[in-house]
Protein backbone atom coordinates (compact mmCIF):
# COMPACT_ATOMS: atom_id res chain seq x y z
CA UNK A 1 0.00 0.00 0.00
CA UNK A 2 1.37 3.38 -1.06
CA UNK A 3 0.08 6.37 0.85
CA UNK A 4 0.57 10.04 0.07
CA UNK A 5 -0.05 12.11 3.19
CA UNK A 6 -0.43 15.87 2.69
CA UNK A 7 2.23 15.84 0.01
CA UNK A 8 3.37 19.33 -1.00
CA UNK A 9 6.07 20.38 -3.43
CA UNK A 10 7.21 23.95 -3.93
CA UNK A 11 9.89 25.56 -6.06
CA UNK A 12 11.31 29.08 -5.85
CA UNK A 13 8.93 31.35 -7.78
CA UNK A 14 10.07 32.98 -10.98
CA UNK A 15 10.60 36.71 -10.65
CA UNK A 16 7.82 38.09 -12.77
CA UNK A 17 8.78 41.72 -12.19
CA UNK A 18 5.87 42.25 -9.85
CA UNK A 19 6.58 44.26 -6.77
CA UNK A 20 6.27 41.47 -4.28
CA UNK A 21 6.43 38.13 -6.00
CA UNK A 22 5.56 35.10 -3.87
CA UNK A 23 8.69 33.42 -2.58
CA UNK A 24 7.49 29.96 -3.53
CA UNK A 25 5.43 28.48 -6.28
CA UNK A 26 3.37 25.47 -5.22
CA UNK A 27 3.40 22.68 -7.81
CA UNK A 28 1.76 19.98 -5.69
CA UNK A 29 -0.55 21.27 -3.01
CA UNK A 30 -1.38 19.11 0.01
CA UNK A 31 -2.23 15.91 -1.86
CA UNK A 32 -3.34 12.84 0.08
CA UNK A 33 -4.20 9.57 -1.60
CA UNK A 34 -3.81 5.83 -1.07
CA UNK A 35 -2.83 3.50 -3.91
CA UNK A 36 -4.08 0.00 -3.07
CA UNK A 37 -1.89 -3.03 -3.94
CA UNK A 38 -2.56 -4.38 -7.41
CA UNK A 39 -4.66 -1.43 -8.52
CA UNK A 40 -4.41 0.20 -11.94
CA UNK A 41 -4.39 3.98 -11.63
CA UNK A 42 -4.27 6.67 -14.28
CA UNK A 43 -3.14 10.18 -13.40
CA UNK A 44 -4.39 12.75 -15.87
CA UNK A 45 -4.99 16.47 -16.10
CA UNK A 46 -4.06 19.50 -18.15
CA UNK A 47 -0.48 20.39 -19.12
CA UNK A 48 1.42 21.86 -16.19
CA UNK A 49 -1.08 20.59 -13.61
CA UNK A 50 1.59 18.62 -11.69
CA UNK A 51 0.99 15.04 -12.90
CA UNK A 52 4.60 14.24 -13.67
CA UNK A 53 5.81 16.08 -10.58
CA UNK A 54 3.53 13.96 -8.41
CA UNK A 55 4.89 10.79 -10.02
CA UNK A 56 8.48 11.98 -9.53
CA UNK A 57 7.80 12.72 -5.86
CA UNK A 58 6.75 9.11 -5.36
CA UNK A 59 9.98 7.87 -6.98
CA UNK A 60 12.14 10.35 -5.05
CA UNK A 61 13.34 12.16 -8.15
CA UNK A 62 12.04 15.35 -6.58
CA UNK A 63 12.18 15.80 -2.80
CA UNK A 64 9.01 16.64 -0.88
CA UNK A 65 8.67 20.13 0.56
CA UNK A 66 6.33 18.76 3.20
CA UNK A 67 4.10 15.76 3.86
CA UNK A 68 4.91 12.09 3.94
CA UNK A 69 4.98 9.08 1.64
CA UNK A 70 4.38 5.72 3.33
CA UNK A 71 5.07 2.46 1.52
CA UNK A 72 3.89 -0.76 3.18
CA UNK A 73 4.02 0.92 6.57
CA UNK A 74 7.48 2.49 6.13
CA UNK A 75 8.11 6.19 5.72
CA UNK A 76 10.05 6.46 2.46
CA UNK A 77 9.84 10.27 2.23
CA UNK A 78 13.57 10.80 2.65
CA UNK A 79 14.88 7.68 0.88
CA UNK A 80 16.99 8.21 -2.26
CA UNK A 81 15.79 6.93 -5.63
CA UNK A 82 17.78 3.70 -5.53
CA UNK A 83 16.48 2.71 -2.11
CA UNK A 84 12.90 3.30 -3.20
CA UNK A 85 13.67 1.19 -6.26
CA UNK A 86 15.06 -1.58 -4.08
CA UNK A 87 11.90 -1.34 -1.96
CA UNK A 88 9.89 -2.14 -5.09
CA UNK A 89 8.99 1.18 -6.73
CA UNK A 90 10.17 1.64 -10.31
CA UNK A 91 9.69 4.52 -12.73
CA UNK A 92 9.43 4.62 -16.51
CA UNK A 93 10.52 8.03 -17.76
CA UNK A 94 8.56 10.03 -20.33
CA UNK A 95 11.78 11.01 -22.08
CA UNK A 96 14.14 8.15 -21.27
CA UNK A 97 17.83 8.94 -20.87
CA UNK A 98 20.03 8.31 -23.86
CA UNK A 99 23.54 7.06 -23.20
CA UNK A 100 26.75 6.71 -25.15
CA UNK A 101 28.04 3.16 -25.25
CA UNK A 102 25.58 1.69 -22.73
CA UNK A 103 23.47 -0.98 -24.41
CA UNK A 104 19.97 -2.34 -23.82
CA UNK A 105 21.67 -5.48 -22.50
CA UNK A 106 23.50 -3.37 -19.90
CA UNK A 107 20.30 -1.68 -18.71
CA UNK A 108 18.33 -4.91 -18.65
CA UNK A 109 21.10 -6.69 -16.73
CA UNK A 110 21.18 -3.92 -14.13
CA UNK A 111 17.42 -4.07 -13.85
CA UNK A 112 17.33 -7.86 -13.51
CA UNK A 113 20.40 -7.97 -11.29
CA UNK A 114 21.79 -10.66 -13.59
CA UNK A 115 23.34 -10.85 -17.04
CA UNK A 116 22.23 -14.45 -17.51
CA UNK A 117 21.30 -14.82 -21.19
CA UNK A 118 18.31 -17.04 -20.46
CA UNK A 119 16.85 -14.54 -18.01
CA UNK A 120 17.34 -11.70 -20.49
CA UNK A 121 15.57 -13.68 -23.19
CA UNK A 122 12.75 -14.47 -20.78
CA UNK A 123 12.12 -10.84 -20.03
CA UNK A 124 12.25 -9.94 -23.70
CA UNK A 125 9.63 -12.51 -24.54
CA UNK A 126 7.56 -11.45 -21.51
CA UNK A 127 7.58 -7.85 -22.68
CA UNK A 128 7.05 -9.04 -26.22
CA UNK A 129 8.05 -5.78 -27.81
CA UNK A 130 11.72 -6.24 -28.43
CA UNK A 131 13.57 -8.55 -30.79
CA UNK A 132 16.85 -10.15 -29.79
CA UNK A 133 18.72 -7.83 -32.18
CA UNK A 134 17.78 -5.06 -29.81
CA UNK A 135 19.84 -6.40 -26.95
CA UNK A 136 23.22 -5.16 -28.09
CA UNK A 137 22.03 -1.85 -29.42
CA UNK A 138 23.43 1.18 -27.64
CA UNK A 139 20.68 3.13 -25.93
CA UNK A 140 21.72 6.32 -27.69
CA UNK A 141 20.29 9.09 -29.81
CA UNK A 142 20.11 6.82 -32.85
CA UNK A 143 17.12 4.95 -31.42
CA UNK A 144 13.68 6.11 -32.50
CA UNK A 145 11.25 7.48 -29.95
CA UNK A 146 9.25 4.25 -30.10
CA UNK A 147 12.28 2.00 -29.68
CA UNK A 148 13.56 3.79 -26.61
CA UNK A 149 10.13 3.71 -24.96
CA UNK A 150 9.95 -0.06 -25.48
CA UNK A 151 13.37 -0.39 -23.86
CA UNK A 152 12.19 1.80 -20.99
CA UNK A 153 9.14 -0.37 -20.47
CA UNK A 154 11.23 -3.55 -20.51
CA UNK A 155 13.67 -2.21 -17.89
CA UNK A 156 10.79 -1.34 -15.56
CA UNK A 157 9.06 -4.70 -15.93
CA UNK A 158 12.35 -6.60 -15.56
CA UNK A 159 12.58 -5.40 -11.95
CA UNK A 160 9.29 -7.09 -11.06
CA UNK A 161 8.16 -3.93 -9.29
CA UNK A 162 5.51 -3.83 -6.58
CA UNK A 163 4.65 -0.35 -7.81
CA UNK A 164 5.30 0.54 -11.45
CA UNK A 165 4.99 4.19 -12.44
CA UNK A 166 4.87 5.00 -16.14
CA UNK A 167 5.11 8.64 -17.18
CA UNK A 168 3.32 9.05 -20.51
CA UNK A 169 4.32 5.62 -21.81
CA UNK A 170 2.68 6.32 -25.17
CA UNK A 171 5.02 9.23 -26.04
CA UNK A 172 6.68 8.33 -29.35
CA UNK A 173 4.75 5.07 -29.62
CA UNK A 174 2.67 4.57 -32.76
CA UNK A 175 -1.07 4.37 -32.43
CA UNK A 176 -1.13 0.64 -33.19
CA UNK A 177 1.25 -0.25 -30.38
CA UNK A 178 -0.71 1.44 -27.61
CA UNK A 179 -3.32 -1.35 -27.40
CA UNK A 180 -0.74 -4.12 -26.94
CA UNK A 181 1.10 -1.90 -24.44
CA UNK A 182 -2.02 -1.51 -22.33
CA UNK A 183 -2.57 -5.29 -22.52
CA UNK A 184 0.99 -5.84 -21.32
CA UNK A 185 0.62 -3.49 -18.34
CA UNK A 186 -2.73 -5.11 -17.47
CA UNK A 187 -1.18 -8.57 -17.67
CA UNK A 188 1.71 -7.51 -15.38
CA UNK A 189 -0.83 -5.99 -13.00
CA UNK A 190 -2.94 -9.16 -12.89
CA UNK A 191 -0.19 -11.79 -12.87
CA UNK A 192 2.20 -10.07 -10.47
CA UNK A 193 -0.27 -7.93 -8.57
CA UNK A 194 1.74 -4.88 -9.64
CA UNK A 195 0.29 -1.59 -8.48
CA UNK A 196 0.33 0.28 -11.77
CA UNK A 197 0.31 4.07 -12.01
CA UNK A 198 0.19 5.59 -15.47
CA UNK A 199 0.49 9.32 -16.13
CA UNK A 200 -1.31 9.83 -19.41
CA UNK A 201 -3.64 11.88 -21.57
CA UNK A 202 -4.36 8.89 -23.71
CA UNK A 203 -7.92 7.62 -23.59
CA UNK A 204 -6.82 3.99 -23.96
CA UNK A 205 -4.92 4.19 -20.68
CA UNK A 206 -7.69 6.14 -18.97
CA UNK A 207 -10.17 3.44 -20.01
CA UNK A 208 -7.85 0.69 -18.78
CA UNK A 209 -7.51 2.18 -15.30
CA UNK A 210 -9.62 1.05 -12.33
CA UNK A 211 -9.24 4.48 -10.78
CA UNK A 212 -8.55 7.81 -12.33
CA UNK A 213 -6.90 10.75 -10.57
CA UNK A 214 -7.55 14.11 -12.16
CA UNK A 215 -4.92 16.66 -11.14
CA UNK A 216 -5.63 20.33 -11.57
CA UNK A 217 -3.38 23.12 -10.32
CA UNK A 218 -1.47 20.76 -8.05
CA UNK A 219 -4.52 19.29 -6.33
CA UNK A 220 -6.57 16.16 -6.88
CA UNK A 221 -9.73 17.49 -8.53
CA UNK A 222 -11.38 14.07 -8.93
CA UNK A 223 -10.86 10.42 -8.14
CA UNK A 224 -13.05 7.67 -9.47
CA UNK A 225 -13.92 5.98 -12.74
CA UNK A 226 -13.63 7.45 -16.20
CA UNK A 227 -17.37 7.96 -16.68
CA UNK A 228 -17.50 10.23 -13.66
CA UNK A 229 -14.50 12.19 -14.88
CA UNK A 230 -15.81 12.76 -18.39
CA UNK A 231 -17.65 16.03 -17.74
CA UNK A 232 -14.53 17.52 -16.16
CA UNK A 233 -12.26 16.15 -18.89
CA UNK A 234 -14.54 17.67 -21.51
CA UNK A 235 -14.17 20.99 -19.73
CA UNK A 236 -10.41 20.62 -19.95
CA UNK A 237 -10.50 20.11 -23.69
CA UNK A 238 -10.97 23.84 -24.13
CA UNK A 239 -7.87 25.95 -24.54
CA UNK A 240 -5.49 26.13 -21.58
CA UNK A 241 -3.10 28.49 -23.28
CA UNK A 242 -5.17 31.66 -22.88
CA UNK A 243 -2.89 32.90 -20.13
CA UNK A 244 -0.07 32.86 -22.62
CA UNK A 245 -1.79 34.48 -25.58
CA UNK A 246 -4.03 36.69 -23.46
CA UNK A 247 -6.80 36.50 -26.01
CA UNK A 248 -4.85 37.90 -28.93
CA UNK A 249 -5.53 35.96 -32.08
CA UNK A 250 -3.09 37.41 -34.57
CA UNK A 251 -2.19 33.88 -35.60
CA UNK A 252 -5.89 33.11 -36.16
CA UNK A 253 -5.73 30.38 -33.59
CA UNK A 254 -8.54 27.85 -33.85
CA UNK A 255 -8.29 26.61 -30.27
Amino acid sequence: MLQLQNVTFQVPALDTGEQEPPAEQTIINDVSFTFEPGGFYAITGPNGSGKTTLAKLIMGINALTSGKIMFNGTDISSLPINERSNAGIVYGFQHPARFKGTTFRDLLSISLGSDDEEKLVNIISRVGVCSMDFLDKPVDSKLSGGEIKKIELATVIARNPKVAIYDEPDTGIDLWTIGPMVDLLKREQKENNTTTIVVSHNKTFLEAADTLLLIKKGKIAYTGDLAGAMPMLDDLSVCTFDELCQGEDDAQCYR
Partner: protein
Amino acid sequence: MLNAIDKKVLKEVADLEGIPKGAYNIRKNGKLEGREVSANINIETNEKGDGIIIDIKPGTVNESVHIPVILSQAGLHDVVYNTFIIGEGSDVTIVAGCGIHCGGDASEGHSGIHEFHIKAGAKVKYVEKHIAIGEGSGKRILNPTTKVFMEENAQAQMELTQLGGVDEAKRVNEATIGAGSVLLITERVMTEKEQSAESKNEITLAGTDSKTNIVSRSVIKGSSSQDFYVNLTAKARCYGHIECDAIIMDNGINQTIPALRALHPDAELTHEASIGKIANDQLMKLMSLGLDYDQAVNRIIQGFLR
Protein backbone atom coordinates in the same frame (compact mmCIF):
# COMPACT_ATOMS: atom_id res chain seq x y z
CA MET B 1 62.08 -14.61 -19.54
CA LEU B 2 58.84 -12.98 -18.63
CA ASN B 3 58.42 -12.43 -14.91
CA ALA B 4 55.17 -12.02 -13.01
CA ILE B 5 55.09 -8.24 -13.51
CA ASP B 6 55.74 -8.63 -17.25
CA LYS B 7 52.89 -11.10 -17.50
CA LYS B 8 50.56 -8.74 -15.68
CA VAL B 9 51.52 -5.91 -18.03
CA LEU B 10 51.05 -8.15 -21.07
CA LYS B 11 47.62 -9.17 -19.86
CA GLU B 12 46.61 -5.53 -19.50
CA VAL B 13 47.94 -4.19 -22.80
CA ALA B 14 47.40 -7.11 -25.11
CA ASP B 15 44.96 -9.47 -23.34
CA LEU B 16 47.71 -12.06 -23.41
CA GLU B 17 48.12 -14.70 -20.74
CA GLY B 18 51.65 -15.46 -21.94
CA ILE B 19 53.46 -15.75 -25.23
CA PRO B 20 50.95 -15.14 -28.06
CA LYS B 21 50.18 -17.48 -30.94
CA GLY B 22 51.22 -16.39 -34.41
CA ALA B 23 53.61 -13.57 -35.20
CA TYR B 24 54.84 -11.42 -32.35
CA ASN B 25 57.60 -9.15 -31.19
CA ILE B 26 57.94 -8.42 -27.49
CA ARG B 27 60.17 -5.53 -26.47
CA LYS B 28 61.21 -5.19 -22.86
CA ASN B 29 63.18 -2.27 -21.43
CA GLY B 30 64.44 -1.23 -24.86
CA LYS B 31 65.56 -4.70 -25.90
CA LEU B 32 64.10 -7.54 -27.90
CA GLU B 33 62.53 -10.08 -25.54
CA GLY B 34 61.10 -12.46 -28.09
CA ARG B 35 60.05 -12.62 -31.72
CA GLU B 36 58.18 -15.06 -33.91
CA VAL B 37 57.37 -14.68 -37.57
CA SER B 38 54.81 -16.59 -39.60
CA ALA B 39 54.71 -17.72 -43.20
CA ASN B 40 52.90 -14.51 -44.16
CA ILE B 41 54.09 -12.03 -41.58
CA ASN B 42 57.74 -11.13 -41.39
CA ILE B 43 59.26 -9.03 -38.61
CA GLU B 44 62.78 -7.70 -38.78
CA THR B 45 64.83 -4.98 -37.14
CA ASN B 46 65.13 -1.88 -39.32
CA GLU B 47 68.43 -0.65 -40.74
CA LYS B 48 68.97 2.03 -38.15
CA GLY B 49 68.26 -0.46 -35.42
CA ASP B 50 65.70 1.80 -33.77
CA GLY B 51 62.64 -0.30 -34.48
CA ILE B 52 61.09 -3.08 -36.51
CA ILE B 53 59.52 -3.55 -39.90
CA ILE B 54 56.41 -5.72 -39.95
CA ASP B 55 55.79 -6.89 -43.45
CA ILE B 56 52.46 -8.55 -44.15
CA LYS B 57 52.28 -10.40 -47.46
CA PRO B 58 49.52 -9.50 -49.92
CA GLY B 59 46.41 -11.65 -49.46
CA THR B 60 47.14 -12.60 -45.83
CA VAL B 61 43.80 -13.08 -44.13
CA ASN B 62 42.65 -13.77 -40.57
CA GLU B 63 46.09 -13.44 -39.08
CA SER B 64 47.21 -11.31 -36.20
CA VAL B 65 50.44 -9.87 -34.95
CA HIS B 66 51.20 -8.78 -31.41
CA ILE B 67 53.91 -6.23 -30.68
CA PRO B 68 53.69 -5.28 -27.00
CA VAL B 69 56.25 -3.19 -25.19
CA ILE B 70 57.05 -3.62 -21.51
CA LEU B 71 58.89 -1.01 -19.48
CA SER B 72 59.93 -1.72 -15.93
CA GLN B 73 63.35 -0.09 -15.68
CA ALA B 74 63.42 3.19 -13.79
CA GLY B 75 64.91 6.11 -15.66
CA LEU B 76 64.52 4.49 -19.08
CA HIS B 77 62.99 6.48 -21.94
CA ASP B 78 62.56 4.10 -24.80
CA VAL B 79 62.05 5.35 -28.38
CA VAL B 80 61.06 3.07 -31.25
CA TYR B 81 60.18 3.56 -34.89
CA ASN B 82 58.08 0.71 -36.25
CA THR B 83 56.91 0.36 -39.81
CA PHE B 84 53.98 -1.77 -40.91
CA ILE B 85 53.52 -2.75 -44.52
CA ILE B 86 50.08 -4.23 -45.00
CA GLY B 87 49.99 -6.04 -48.32
CA GLU B 88 47.27 -5.73 -50.93
CA GLY B 89 44.03 -7.49 -50.15
CA SER B 90 45.10 -8.66 -46.71
CA ASP B 91 42.87 -8.68 -43.65
CA VAL B 92 44.79 -8.63 -40.37
CA THR B 93 44.69 -7.52 -36.76
CA ILE B 94 47.62 -5.78 -35.11
CA VAL B 95 47.72 -5.59 -31.35
CA ALA B 96 50.20 -3.08 -30.00
CA GLY B 97 50.48 -1.31 -26.72
CA CYS B 98 52.81 -0.33 -24.00
CA GLY B 99 52.68 -1.15 -20.36
CA ILE B 100 54.82 0.66 -17.84
CA HIS B 101 55.49 -0.78 -14.43
CA CYS B 102 57.03 1.90 -12.30
CA GLY B 103 58.69 0.70 -9.12
CA GLY B 104 60.94 3.66 -8.28
CA ASP B 105 60.98 7.43 -8.20
CA ALA B 106 62.70 7.98 -11.56
CA SER B 107 60.47 8.60 -14.55
CA GLU B 108 59.91 6.02 -17.25
CA GLY B 109 58.68 6.63 -20.74
CA HIS B 110 58.05 5.22 -24.15
CA SER B 111 57.71 7.05 -27.43
CA GLY B 112 56.51 4.77 -30.18
CA ILE B 113 56.19 5.95 -33.73
CA HIS B 114 54.09 3.61 -35.83
CA GLU B 115 53.99 4.13 -39.54
CA PHE B 116 51.41 2.22 -41.55
CA HIS B 117 51.49 1.68 -45.29
CA ILE B 118 48.14 0.15 -46.07
CA LYS B 119 48.08 -1.13 -49.62
CA ALA B 120 45.12 -1.25 -52.00
CA GLY B 121 42.15 -3.29 -50.80
CA ALA B 122 43.79 -4.19 -47.49
CA LYS B 123 41.89 -4.27 -44.25
CA VAL B 124 43.52 -3.79 -40.89
CA LYS B 125 42.39 -3.52 -37.33
CA TYR B 126 44.91 -1.85 -35.06
CA VAL B 127 44.38 -2.12 -31.31
CA GLU B 128 46.66 -0.08 -29.10
CA LYS B 129 46.37 0.02 -25.34
CA HIS B 130 48.48 2.01 -22.94
CA ILE B 131 48.63 1.37 -19.25
CA ALA B 132 50.88 2.21 -16.34
CA ILE B 133 50.95 0.41 -13.02
CA GLY B 134 53.27 0.01 -10.05
CA GLU B 135 53.83 1.58 -6.68
CA GLY B 136 56.70 3.89 -7.68
CA SER B 137 56.39 7.65 -7.65
CA GLY B 138 58.26 8.24 -10.93
CA LYS B 139 56.37 9.83 -13.79
CA ARG B 140 55.05 7.48 -16.44
CA ILE B 141 55.20 9.09 -19.84
CA LEU B 142 53.79 7.72 -23.09
CA ASN B 143 54.05 9.62 -26.35
CA PRO B 144 52.61 7.56 -29.19
CA THR B 145 52.59 8.67 -32.80
CA THR B 146 50.77 6.97 -35.63
CA LYS B 147 51.28 7.85 -39.28
CA VAL B 148 48.88 6.19 -41.67
CA PHE B 149 49.12 6.14 -45.44
CA MET B 150 46.20 4.44 -47.14
CA GLU B 151 46.12 3.56 -50.82
CA GLU B 152 42.80 2.95 -52.62
CA ASN B 153 39.86 0.97 -51.25
CA ALA B 154 41.58 0.08 -48.02
CA GLN B 155 39.97 -0.07 -44.60
CA ALA B 156 41.59 0.69 -41.29
CA GLN B 157 40.04 0.59 -37.87
CA MET B 158 42.16 2.00 -35.08
CA GLU B 159 41.29 1.63 -31.42
CA LEU B 160 43.54 3.69 -29.22
CA THR B 161 43.03 3.33 -25.51
CA GLN B 162 44.66 4.76 -22.42
CA LEU B 163 42.75 4.11 -19.24
CA GLY B 164 44.52 5.58 -16.26
CA GLY B 165 47.96 5.38 -14.72
CA VAL B 166 49.79 7.43 -17.36
CA ASP B 167 51.04 10.79 -16.02
CA GLU B 168 51.81 12.46 -19.30
CA ALA B 169 50.71 11.51 -22.78
CA LYS B 170 51.24 13.37 -26.01
CA ARG B 171 49.66 11.59 -28.91
CA VAL B 172 49.96 12.47 -32.56
CA ASN B 173 47.86 10.80 -35.23
CA GLU B 174 48.42 11.61 -38.88
CA ALA B 175 46.61 9.99 -41.77
CA THR B 176 46.29 10.38 -45.50
CA ILE B 177 43.34 8.51 -46.90
CA GLY B 178 43.29 7.41 -50.53
CA ALA B 179 40.38 7.01 -52.93
CA GLY B 180 37.57 4.78 -51.69
CA SER B 181 39.39 4.09 -48.44
CA VAL B 182 37.85 4.23 -44.99
CA LEU B 183 39.59 5.13 -41.74
CA LEU B 184 37.82 4.72 -38.41
CA ILE B 185 39.58 6.01 -35.30
CA THR B 186 38.26 5.56 -31.78
CA GLU B 187 40.29 7.09 -29.01
CA ARG B 188 39.41 6.44 -25.38
CA VAL B 189 41.30 8.23 -22.67
CA MET B 190 40.75 8.33 -18.95
CA THR B 191 42.94 10.56 -16.82
CA GLU B 192 42.92 11.09 -13.07
CA LYS B 193 44.91 12.80 -10.29
CA GLU B 194 47.33 15.35 -11.81
CA GLN B 195 47.68 13.55 -15.15
CA SER B 196 47.61 15.25 -18.51
CA ALA B 197 46.88 13.90 -21.96
CA GLU B 198 47.01 15.62 -25.30
CA SER B 199 45.95 14.24 -28.65
CA LYS B 200 46.71 15.98 -31.92
CA ASN B 201 45.18 14.62 -35.08
CA GLU B 202 45.91 15.65 -38.65
CA ILE B 203 43.68 13.68 -40.98
CA THR B 204 43.56 14.29 -44.71
CA LEU B 205 40.86 12.89 -46.96
CA ALA B 206 42.97 12.88 -50.11
CA GLY B 207 41.19 10.56 -52.55
CA THR B 208 37.76 10.60 -54.16
CA ASP B 209 35.11 8.92 -52.00
CA SER B 210 37.45 8.53 -49.07
CA LYS B 211 35.75 8.39 -45.68
CA THR B 212 36.65 8.83 -42.07
CA ASN B 213 34.96 8.78 -38.69
CA ILE B 214 36.95 10.03 -35.74
CA VAL B 215 35.52 9.32 -32.30
CA SER B 216 37.07 10.60 -29.11
CA ARG B 217 35.78 9.64 -25.67
CA SER B 218 37.42 11.34 -22.72
CA VAL B 219 36.87 10.95 -19.02
CA ILE B 220 38.69 13.52 -16.93
CA LYS B 221 38.83 12.79 -13.21
CA GLY B 222 40.61 14.39 -10.27
CA SER B 223 42.62 17.45 -11.26
CA SER B 224 43.67 16.00 -14.59
CA SER B 225 43.47 17.65 -17.98
CA GLN B 226 42.92 16.51 -21.53
CA ASP B 227 43.23 18.40 -24.78
CA PHE B 228 41.95 17.02 -28.04
CA TYR B 229 42.73 18.62 -31.38
CA VAL B 230 41.67 17.40 -34.76
CA ASN B 231 42.19 18.97 -38.14
CA LEU B 232 40.17 17.20 -40.79
CA THR B 233 41.14 18.33 -44.26
CA ALA B 234 39.25 17.32 -47.38
CA LYS B 235 40.97 17.48 -50.75
CA ALA B 236 38.46 15.49 -52.78
CA ARG B 237 34.83 14.44 -52.88
CA CYS B 238 34.67 12.67 -49.54
CA TYR B 239 32.87 12.25 -46.25
CA GLY B 240 34.27 12.90 -42.81
CA HIS B 241 32.83 13.08 -39.33
CA ILE B 242 34.30 13.94 -35.95
CA GLU B 243 32.57 13.06 -32.70
CA CYS B 244 34.24 14.12 -29.50
CA ASP B 245 32.67 13.74 -26.09
CA ALA B 246 34.26 14.54 -22.78
CA ILE B 247 32.91 13.79 -19.34
CA ILE B 248 34.39 15.97 -16.63
CA MET B 249 34.40 14.73 -13.05
CA ASP B 250 35.79 16.41 -9.96
CA ASN B 251 38.09 19.29 -11.02
CA GLY B 252 39.15 18.04 -14.43
CA ILE B 253 39.55 20.39 -17.36
CA ASN B 254 39.23 19.80 -21.07
CA GLN B 255 39.75 21.52 -24.38
CA THR B 256 38.24 20.01 -27.49
CA ILE B 257 39.09 21.70 -30.75
CA PRO B 258 37.73 20.08 -33.89
CA ALA B 259 38.46 21.82 -37.18
CA LEU B 260 36.98 21.05 -40.57
CA ARG B 261 38.67 22.22 -43.76
CA ALA B 262 36.95 21.57 -47.06
CA LEU B 263 39.38 22.25 -49.90
CA HIS B 264 37.08 20.61 -52.43
CA PRO B 265 33.53 21.69 -53.29
CA ASP B 266 32.11 18.16 -52.92
CA ALA B 267 33.55 17.54 -49.49
CA GLU B 268 31.04 16.71 -46.78
CA LEU B 269 32.38 17.23 -43.28
CA THR B 270 30.54 17.26 -39.96
CA HIS B 271 31.44 17.34 -36.33
CA GLU B 272 29.76 17.10 -32.97
CA ALA B 273 31.44 17.86 -29.69
CA SER B 274 30.28 17.94 -26.13
CA ILE B 275 31.92 18.55 -22.78
CA GLY B 276 30.10 18.26 -19.50
CA LYS B 277 29.37 16.31 -16.39
CA ILE B 278 27.52 13.00 -16.43
CA ALA B 279 23.98 13.71 -17.55
CA ASN B 280 21.55 13.80 -14.68
CA ASP B 281 18.88 11.84 -16.54
CA GLN B 282 21.34 8.97 -17.03
CA LEU B 283 22.10 8.89 -13.30
CA MET B 284 18.38 9.01 -12.44
CA LYS B 285 17.64 6.13 -14.77
CA LEU B 286 20.30 3.85 -13.32
CA MET B 287 19.40 4.82 -9.75
CA SER B 288 15.77 4.05 -10.53
CA LEU B 289 17.02 0.55 -11.41
CA GLY B 290 18.51 0.19 -7.92
CA LEU B 291 22.13 1.36 -8.32
CA ASP B 292 23.50 3.85 -5.82
CA TYR B 293 25.10 7.07 -7.06
CA ASP B 294 28.66 5.73 -7.28
CA GLN B 295 27.61 2.49 -8.96
CA ALA B 296 25.57 4.48 -11.48
CA VAL B 297 28.54 6.74 -12.27
CA ASN B 298 30.78 3.69 -12.78
CA ARG B 299 28.35 1.99 -15.14
CA ILE B 300 27.92 5.13 -17.23
CA ILE B 301 31.69 5.63 -17.51
CA GLN B 302 32.22 1.93 -18.32
CA GLY B 303 29.77 2.13 -21.20
CA PHE B 304 31.14 5.46 -22.40
CA LEU B 305 34.70 4.14 -22.62
CA ARG B 306 33.76 0.78 -24.10
